[in-house]
């Protein structure tokens, strides 16, 4: 009986361990010209600064389809609080007309944008894109 309980407990822990492995990745369309983006470039991109590849600006899209992505975006990508981020965006628009990253609120819209815009750059849960041939993973931004 004790052995059965122990086995059950181990099984539950193992299942949770597998399910708990999560990662947020930077993604682009499969036909994108982007090969790699350094973390500082990713930060610039999502703060609205222009980032050009082959002379064409990339289009950052902020994935807000899952509330758990917000703290990862603020801590790992732009490295600032929401209020500081909002102010930085305002300053950029006011000084040079920089474009604020468009916010997408459903996973379907995020994928549709990636399929239609070859210059799109966004971030997603790895589990949502790892078997998708139309999307290319550029780098891992966060994992637990």
């Amino acid at each position, binding site marked *: 009986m004790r052995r059965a309980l122990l086995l059950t407990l181990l099984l539950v822990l193992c299942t949770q361990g597998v399910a708990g492995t999560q990662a947020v990745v930077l993604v682009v369309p499969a036909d994108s010209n982007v090969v790699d983006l350094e973390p*500082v470039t990713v930060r610039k991109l999502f703060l609205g600064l222009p980032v050009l590849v082959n002379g*064409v600006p990339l289009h950052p899209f902020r994935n807000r389809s899952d509330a758990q992505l917000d703290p990862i975006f603020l801590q790992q990508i732009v490295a600032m609080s929401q209020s500081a981020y909002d102010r*930085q965006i305002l*300053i950029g628009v*006011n000084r040079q*007309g920089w474009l604020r990253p468009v916010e997408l609120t459903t996973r379907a819209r995020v994928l549709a944008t990636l399929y239609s815009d070859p210059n799109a750059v966004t971030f997603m849960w790895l589990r949502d894109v790892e078997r998708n041939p139309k999307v290319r993973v550029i780098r891992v931004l966060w994992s637990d």
Partner: protein
Amino acid sequence: MRVSRLLIVLCALAAPLARGDPLQHEFLLFTSAEFAGTFDRQAPETQVVDEVLKADMLFSLQHGPLKLFGEYLVSDHEGDLERFQLGWQLSDDTIIWVGRYHQPTSVWNHDHHHGQYLQTSITRPAIDEWEDLGGILPQHFTGVLLESSRPVLDAWQLRTAVGAGLAPQLNPEGLQTFNLLHPDSNRRQVGYQARASLHPGEFTESGIGALVADDRLSAVGWNFPPGTGFDDVDLRLYGVFGTYAAAAWKLTATVYYADARLERHESIAASDFIVGCVQAERRFGHELTGFLRWEDSSGAGRSQYIKLFEEFARLGHIAGLRWDFAENQALTLQLSDTHTLNGHFADFRLQWSAAFF
């Protein structure tokens, strides 16, 4: 007609680069409402307006590396296309603009432009005041502006801006800028400006810098009685500035040296002056920010050029408190003590300001 041809040519040039690139856009609205009153008033003229309502609209359109950026300000006393710039993003770091721009050698205006919500104090330093509000330096030019920000010395960032464009005209009402919506054929001359600043990081406001400008202003209506007065002003400006921005504190200091030459034929009336400004801001709990500003000048009283602007504040002290009470909204209370060339006055102001996407 020339502008439309230029747009067509630029769009044609941009098309190959922007193939498959959708048109992107941005819109931002800054609004503010201000109430002001003066007391202890001995000056015959002040720049204080009792009530001011403002809506400052910014838009940006981008197609590939081509960008159109504009700013239209409407208030209860004016409506003006403040900026209208067609830009080409040459690289991640550099953009070149053609159109009406804010000259880069005003430290305050280069940072805040007309975005009332983004500046902690209600008023700007007198030396950085806009032309239509009694400002003594030309701020709006129509021409070419090149802006760049590139890494140097490992982690440092060098930001530069160079501009050349049609300068405002000087008449007895003050500096008159070239209006893109209602262009005139008045005699205008060209001004040149440059600034450079060094920052310890790409995203910090802290840094130090220097600026230089040489603006020639055509003077109209100053030849009375005939044979006297002046025809042109050669305004040379040199300045240094520094900002320290931390989580709780922000300190900004600026010093300008101006050499203004009032010219008529071979005769020149030289007049130089120095203007300085220091502002300290301290963040407290509950979204409160206190601020103090000290503005001072040397040689303003004997400058023939500054005497053309009776309302110019040669000395000023400002204190205030800002409360960011809601997302992108703030209330600000400010007290000022101002000395112009002709007298002194004090004023209080209360302002609501906001930013809306």
